[in-house]
Each structure stands twice: as structure tokens, then as C-alpha cells.
């Protein structure tokens, strides 16, 4: 018995449709969230993340309806986020069917949000998303979809986030995101070895070897990707078979 490493497809949505872009910019349509959710559920995804990347501009009811319809399709855990700034907004997302809530910019601006969410839903439901960009001597936390710099060091922020109540870290390399040149394993290892909670690596995935590397050298507990799954560049089952063949414990559905 031991805990399997998780493969997590991510649906970046504009509230209603799945979209994608490089370095958080130049968005284009990538499909229907409900159809993709059903496909990933059947293909053996271990979890699903659905983000509203246009939360600041668009209305929430659309996104809540998307969560509701996606949750209907799933027999695996669902994490939702994007623009959650209050306990009330988180409650709406959980009521719509999310098992976990992910927060990013709002937690940087008001760290107590993590404690409030953790007190209400439990640490296992609170995912702190960190967008990290390489700088001299470490990684800097970026906010607002990676566009804005902060004075926070990513490793210190991760540790503080866990103290405040986060039960998991969703770590995205801003440098690698959208490049398909592989995860930043150095970043992932630095954060994963520095916190007591699981870390989900994100940003840069393309090849099965990238996943193997982030699970071994990167010490990641889970790995997240979007477009390679949406575009069927990589099947989840083939990826998991590759990982198992290379000694990584993964869940292969029956």
C-alpha cells in the first residue's frame, strides 16, 4: 500500500468555455468543459481542476453553473478556483460541487483568507496556488495571472500558506507555463521538500519523460497539465502506463 502520484488535467475557462494561451495571454477556445470533464473522468484522471481565468471580468453565475455541470459528470475529486476572494464566494463554489477551493492572488493580498477557508472546509479542501518566476537566488511569487510581481519568495510563501491552513500547494512555473519544455523540477523540488503538504507541479508539461522527471527529481505529489490533454497530444492512460513502467506508482483504472 502506498499513495499513488496523481495526474490532474486542468480546465482554464472563461467561465463557460475552456480556453488556452501561452504565458497567460492570447486566449483561444479549447472546448466544452463538461465534455472534457467526462472524457478525463473516463480516461483515468485522478482529479480535475477547473479555473475561471476571467473571473475579474465576467459574471460568477456562469462559472458556478459550469462547476455544477462538470461535477455532475465526475466520480473523482474536483478543485475549482479563479477569483475567489471571500468565504462567501468559496461557499458558493463548494455548494456548486467543488471538493476543494484554490486561491492565488486573494491569498497574497489577504493571507487570513487561507485560515478562514481552512476553518470552514478543512485544510484538505484548501489549495494555495502559487505562480513562481525564477529570479536571482530563488523564485518570486507573481499574482494576477502571473502578470504582476510581488516581494514574496515562493518557498517562504508556501511555508507560510501551510501554517495558515493550506492543505496543498498548486505550484506553477511562470517561466515554463505554455512552453511545453518540461516542468521546472528544481522549483518543484525546492517547494515540495520545504513544505509538509502535497505539491502539484504545473507549467511546461509535454512529454511523458517530463512527468517522470517531476515525480522523481522534482519530488512532486501530483502533476497538472492542460493543452496536451485537451489536444490529445498525450493520453492519460498511456502516460500512466509509461510512469508505472518506470517505477512510479500510479492508479491505472480497471
Amino acid at each position, binding site marked *: 500500500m502506498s499513495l*499513488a502520484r496523481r495526474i490532474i488535467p486542468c480546465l482554464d475557462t472563461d467561465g463557460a468555455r475552456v480556453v488556452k494561451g501561452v504565458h497567460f495571454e492570447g486566449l483561444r477556445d479549447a472546448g466544452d468543459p463538461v465534455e472534457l470533464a467526462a472524457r478525463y473522468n473516463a480516461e483515468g484522471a485522478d482529479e480535475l481542476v477547473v479555473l475561471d481565468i476571467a473571473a475579474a471580468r465576467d459574471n460568477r453565475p456562469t462559472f458556478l453553473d459550469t462547476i455544477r455541470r462538470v461535477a455532475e459528470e465526475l*466520480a473523482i475529486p474536483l478543485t475549482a478556483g479563479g477569483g475567489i476572494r471571500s468565504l462567501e464566494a468559496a461557499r458558493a463554489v*463548494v455548494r456548486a460541487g467543488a471538493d476543494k477551493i484554490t486561491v492565488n492572488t486573494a491569498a497574497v493580498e489577504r493571507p487570513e483568507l487561507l485560515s478562514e477557508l481552512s476553518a470552514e*472546509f*478543512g485544510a*484538505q479542501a484548501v489549495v494555495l496556488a502559487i505562480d513562481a518566476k525564477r529570479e536571482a537566488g530563488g523564485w518570486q511569487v507573481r499574482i494576477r495571472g502571473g502578470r504582476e510581481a510581488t516581494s514574496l519568495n515562493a518557498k517562504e510563501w508556501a511555508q507560510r500558506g501551510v501554517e495558515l491552513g493550506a492543505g*496543498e500547494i498548486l505550484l506553477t512555473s511562470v517561466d515554463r507555463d505554455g512552453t511545453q519544455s518540461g516542468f521546472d523540477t528544481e522549483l518543484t523540488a525546492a517547494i515540495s521538500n520545504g513544505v509538509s*503538504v502535497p505539491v502539484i507541479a504545473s507549467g511546461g508539461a509535454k512529454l511523458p519523460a517530463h512527468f517522470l522527471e517531476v515525480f522523481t527529481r522534482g519530488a512532486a505529489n501530483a502533476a497538472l497539465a492542460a493543452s496536451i490533454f485537451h489536444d490529445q497530444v498525450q493520453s492519460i492512460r498511456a502516460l500512466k502506463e509509461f510512469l508505472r513502467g518506470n517505477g512510479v506508482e500510479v492508479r491505472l*483504472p*480497471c
Partner: protein
Amino acid sequence: MNVTLIDYGAGNVPSVERALRRLGANVETTNLPEKLARARCLVLPGVGHCAALIGALDARSLRQPLIEAIGRGAAFLGICLGLQALYESSEEAPDLRGLGLLPGRVTRLPENVKLPHMGWNTLKTIRATRLLDSVPFGAYFYFAHSFAAPAEGKERAAVSEHGREFIAVIEQENICAVQFHPEKSGEAGAQVLRNFLRAAA
């Protein structure tokens, strides 16, 4: 099959309800003591902090009717915190009394592994049960918790391990409980729920 799903405000109530409905159960979601008193098949879900569950059961006067329903033989399934609540106490909320239907104490998993124990893990079956009937050997189930039941006890049907062994499946007369989330555990989880509904019928 009529199922009474105890809704004390836990986050996973809607997904448990959805999973039971998919299997054809007629689910009534309630937090009223009189409904528990009449129930023949009860499901207690739960996720988060155990003080929230125990506190809500007491605040809504659900403790006694629940214990009495189980005592008179109603089929019971506890999920996650719904398993932990069966014990006498929990390290997570030392000042609160558990339901005390099983002896022992729920304790925190060791610090030498990442917590919460979050993700898909397998089981080691200790004895044959109705709950795990037709579940393939080596099947994975979804866990999300930092506290866990003891490793031993006569209620033990299967264990899992994360830092230490803990009881992951309980089947003792009409008391069934699982530490994992069957409603989030794909087809293997659905099979466990199906088995429970069949045994309860």
C-alpha cells in the same frame, strides 16, 4: 432503496447524494432528529474538521437518534469523518466525545509523511466483507484526511497505510464505514456504495 443521508453541512453531502442516486437509491437528505429515529438505512458523510461534525450532531440533537437507530439495527455507512466519529474520541478535538460505538481513539498520522493523506491509495483486506465484494484486488480509493482510526480492532475489515497502518474499512454487524471517499473513487467507489445498498436492502 430508501437512504437517509445526514446533512449537517459537510462539503461532500451533494456528491454523496449524487453518487447514491446514480446507483438508483432514493435519497432523503435531512438534519432532523425525527427522520433519523425512523430511518432504516443511514449514511453519515463528512469531510473537514471532526469538531464540526460532532458539534453539528449535538447542536441538532442528532446524536441520540443516530445511536438508537444503529442500536436497533438500521444499516449504517460512515464516510471519512463519518468513520472517525464512531470511536470514543479524536486527537483532533480532544474535548469532544465521539459516538463511542467503537472502542479507541482517532489520532493524527505521523509527521514523517506529507499530510493530509491526499490522493489514491490501496487497501489490505483483513477479512471477507460484503462492502468489498467484487472490488478488484489492488483497486485504488481516494483519501483526504490527516487523522485516522487505530490499526487494529475487531471492527477492522481492511486497512490502508500512510505513515502508519489505519483501519480503512469497517464492517461489524450493521455498522459499515470507510475512511476513503467512495463518492470520489471512480468505479471502485461506486462498487462499495452498490454493495452497501445491496446489504442494506
